[in-house]
């Protein structure tokens, strides 16, 4: 069932990935821009079970590893996203008060985005990547939090509707 759900989600992720790589990447905005795909993947994971979160993270991480803007080795984003997807879905799993509250979702995704990016940075450091300016890293992480807070409320209605349409229909089927 997980594999089937994973396969159903894949075209949606592919479209969002395409939008991220071709459209969102054109906008050079404060703090290095916004990662719509990362926000989408974490939001999607937060709405599902931990297993589905890990699988979602795996697929999203693979796509992120294929991006030309990725500097780390293939699999680095995959590893981070598996853990992030699993963790974010694990936190809210079984707690309908948590999942039903949009503010909780905004907060958890807004925290998860910079944490995920920070984890990527730390693991990249272990693989020998250059760290760069500390101030720049701080600005980038801070701005990604702000952008996430701004983007998640806009994205959430679409994501929750698509998610429920797909998986509730699947459950009924």
């Amino acid at each position, binding site marked *: 069932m*997980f594999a089937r759900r994973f396969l159903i989600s894949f075209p949606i992720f592919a479209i969002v990935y*395409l939008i991220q*790589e*071709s*459209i969102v*990447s*054109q*906008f*050079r*905005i*404060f703090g290095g821009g916004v990662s719509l795909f990362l926000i989408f993947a974490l939001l999607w994971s937060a709405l599902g*079970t*931990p*297993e589905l979160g*890990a*699988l979602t*993270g*795996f697929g999203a*991480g693979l796509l992120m*590893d*294929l991006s*030309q803007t990725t500097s780390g*080795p*293939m*699999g*680095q984003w*995959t*590893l981070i996203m*598996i*853990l992030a997807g*699993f963790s974010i879905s*694990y936190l809210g*799993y*079984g707690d309908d008060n948590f999942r039903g509250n949009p503010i909780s979702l905004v907060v958890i995704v807004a925290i998860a985005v910079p944490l995920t990016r920070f984890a990527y940075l730390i693991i990249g450091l272990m*693989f020998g990547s250059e760290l760069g300016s500390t101030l720049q890293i701080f600005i980038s992480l801070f701005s990604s939090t702000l952008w996430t807070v701004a983007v998640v409320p806009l994205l959430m209605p679409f994501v929750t509707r698509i998610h429920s349409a797909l998986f509730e229909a699947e459950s009924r089927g």
Partner: protein
Amino acid sequence: MRNGGDNRGRLLLISLIVTSLFLITLDLRGVQVIDGLRSGSQTALSPVQSAAATVFRPVGNFFSDITRLGRTRGEIEKLKADNEKLRQSLINRTIADAELLELKSVLDLAGIAKYRVVAAKVISLGSTSSFAQTISIDAGTNDGVKENMTVITGLGLVGVVKKSYPNSALVQLASDSAFRVGARVAGSQQIGILSGQGTSKAVLQLLDNQTTLKVGDVILARGSQNNRPFVPGVPIGEVTSVDNAAGAVTQTADVKLFVNFSTLSVVAVVVGSPKSDPRDALVPKGPIPIPVPTVTIYATPSGSPKP
């Protein structure tokens, strides 16, 4: 799962993590398949990215400009200022090049005649308070420039110093209608008086009615006593038309002055000259005739056919 999850969930998580670590290991070991995956995805994605860049880049630039509005404005101002500076330095450089060329030619002329000269820049042209045709130069008595000294350029006579101040001097141009100079026709001893007419042409009146002028004759300064106000041998102009009116006591001619007075920037004041007259040494060289190749064909009659 909330309290640790079932075994299947754990197994899935572990297998996914192991897969990602496997991918990292393969990539770090330089396995070609991994590189191929990335390059393949980029090959597939690049046309879409190009199309999106064409459509969305202006919008992206707009947003980028909004966030960098203050800095962009500052950069534009800085670039404008830099551009203005560069334009000014380019103009200065062009002016300096032209002045250098003029200076070189005037020094060449002075060198041939062995004149001792003081180079000067023209600091003002003409006068708004009078009709006299004059220029002001940035050399004066401090540089050895005195009244009644000859002023030349690389092309020939400019005029004569009328007033000299410590750091500047006023020069009466040869084109001024009050200007008079004793002149000589190059290649002969015909002498006359050349008068300025207020234009680029002057009138030469010969003193001797036995001689004749031709169009194209070069007119030189005859020189004055003690070489002041005029040193001998300085080219003045070229005869463009000769007035052969019947009944005239002496011949007159229109002379086109060599110097273009409207573009003067660097001149030289002759402060000393050799005792010997340079004669015709300063006459401008005419154009070198280009030899026209000629072909001579010799026709050799062949033997006449026998009847």
